[in-house]
């Protein structure tokens, strides 16, 4: 408002002020340019501390609601669940189930990653591979792994084979999709720099493309892990014991049938705890020592 009024009367003219020059202080006089953080700053800067705080809040809410609703059959308290978790861990039953699940999971995960690596390697080096990968991912990525289980049971029988098959399916496509889009996103300059060194073929892919695409590859690994974990538990829940020793999904299923609700919750909690550990210990450490250190991800 005032500006337009002024422009009618008189153009805006900045006033002329005196000049000055200063001698700047030496950094030594000002003191340390970098200083250690205060304990509070360090605590709030610590992601682990902040996450634990959130977990404590959630746990408190759980406990409060369960005590208030007072219905141990539908919603046991956190303390009761933790106690059950402890006893079933100590008597070795839950631990055994977890190990069974994790073993199958890791096999499926590893095979899925290897298959994704082969597919994306083909896709970045040949045009046919590129077309193949795009077609396959758009066909199979939307297909829920669980939907394949009946077929897998038919093919591989009631055993670890079928579970591994659906796990591979769950991991392969998101992993390949993310890795491939990571490779495609590597800048031309970086590619040319790599070729300029005389790198070719596999060495070029491993030494330039893979590290440059690492943020996307890690995302793929994380998504693949989550999909695999989910798929496994669901498969065990839906189809019960599908191998000699049941896994953690089977543990949940069994206990629900026997109306051991605290055990059901303990099983679920175990799934959550393993997920949390893998995410916040394994993947986070990888990130901290790679992409964050390199400034490729915040």
């Amino acid at each position, binding site marked *: 408002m005032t500006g337009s009024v002024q422009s009618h009367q008189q153009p805006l003219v900045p006033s002329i002020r005196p000049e000055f020059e200063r001698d700047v202080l030496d950094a030594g006089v000002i003191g340390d340019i970098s200083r250690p953080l205060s304990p509070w700053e360090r605590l709030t800067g610590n992601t682990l501390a902040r996450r634990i705080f959130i977990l404590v809040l959630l746990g408190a809410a759980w406990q409060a609601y369960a005590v208030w609703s007072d219905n141990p059959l539908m919603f046991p308290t956190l303390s009761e669940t933790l106690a059950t978790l402890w006893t079933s861990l100590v008597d070795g039953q839950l631990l055994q189930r977890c190990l069974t699940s994790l073993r199958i999971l890791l096999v499926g995960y590893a095979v899925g990653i290897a298959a994704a690596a082969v597919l994306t390697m083909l896709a970045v080096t040949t045009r046919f591979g590129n077309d193949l990968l795009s077609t396959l991912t758009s066909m199979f990525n939307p297909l829920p792994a669980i939907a394949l289980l009946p077929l897998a049971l038919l093919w591989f029988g009631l055993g670890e084979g079928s579970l591994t098959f659906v796990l591979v399916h769950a991991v392969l496509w998101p992993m390949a999709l993310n890795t491939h889009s990571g490779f495609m996103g590597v800048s031309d300059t970086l590619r*040319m720099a790599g070729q300029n*060194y*005389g790198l070719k073929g596999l060495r070029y892919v491993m030494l330039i493309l893979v590290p440059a695409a690492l943020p996307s590859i890690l995302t793929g690994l994380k998504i693949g892990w989550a999909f695999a974990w989910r798929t496994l538990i669901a498969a065990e829940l839906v189809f019960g014991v599908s191998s000699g020793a049941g896994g953690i999904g089977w543990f949940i299923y069994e206990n629900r049938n026997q109306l051991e609700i605290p055990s059901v919750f303990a099983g679920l909690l175990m799934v959550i705890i393993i997920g949390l550990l893998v995410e916040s210990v394994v993947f986070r450490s990888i990130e901290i020592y790679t992409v964050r250190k390199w400034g490729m991800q915040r």
Partner: protein
Amino acid sequence: MGRVLPFTGQEADPGVLLDVDNVTLQYKTDSRLVTATYQVDFQVHRGDRFVLLGPSGCGKSSLLKAVAGFIKPVEGQIRLNGAPVTGPGPDRMVVFQEFDQLLPWKTVFQNVMFPLRSRGVPKREAEDRAGTYIAKVGLDRFRDSYPHILSGGMKQRVAIARAMATEPEILLMDEPFAALDALTRRRMQEELLQLWDDVRFTVLFVTHSIEEAIIVGNRILVLSPHPGQVKAELNAHSYGHEKSEGFAALENRIHTMLFAEQNTAPAPKVTRAARP
């Protein structure tokens, strides 16, 4: 200045290193064929600071990429030491304009080491050379830093150190200082000339700044606007950072050459009218 050798015509000719022979470069896009340069020929001699100068879009970068082996000429040939260039290789190290040419997952030292090691230079020697060149560009203190904490000018210095440490036949630089502020750019030009004084390498340098071309180069190839054709090849070996009459005359001459089509006289320097 020490490096400015007056041209007498008597000196021993160190010989042609790079021969760009009648090179036409084209890009095929989905809908049409773009000719970037048309029948360009020039020869770079050993020890040259050879500058490709021309307006934006005249195909300087394309020529440099062709020399580096990233694109193939549709006509003509590029020969290094008499052998045709067939693909990229560490005998022609490129310093790009972009700051993201360093590998973010390697420290400054590792970045300089990497091409040496992948070329098969023994570890000890590679370490020595990397250390020497990092010191030459004044980045000793940042040897173990990752590139993301460096400023733009520092990244370019690392790229230069990296390229020089491999001791290529010819150093290819595509507007390496264009994205820097004027002060840093001038410093980097001085440093480059200083390095050349020390090491005496051969460099093919792309720029669109007439001033930079005269300062950096001993020989300037002037290219016409799109598609690039050779307009002139000029000597600039007697000019450095000091502005002299000859400098200004050469600057004017090139300016007229480049902008002859648009307006015959060199454009007046745009100056702001004094305001209260």
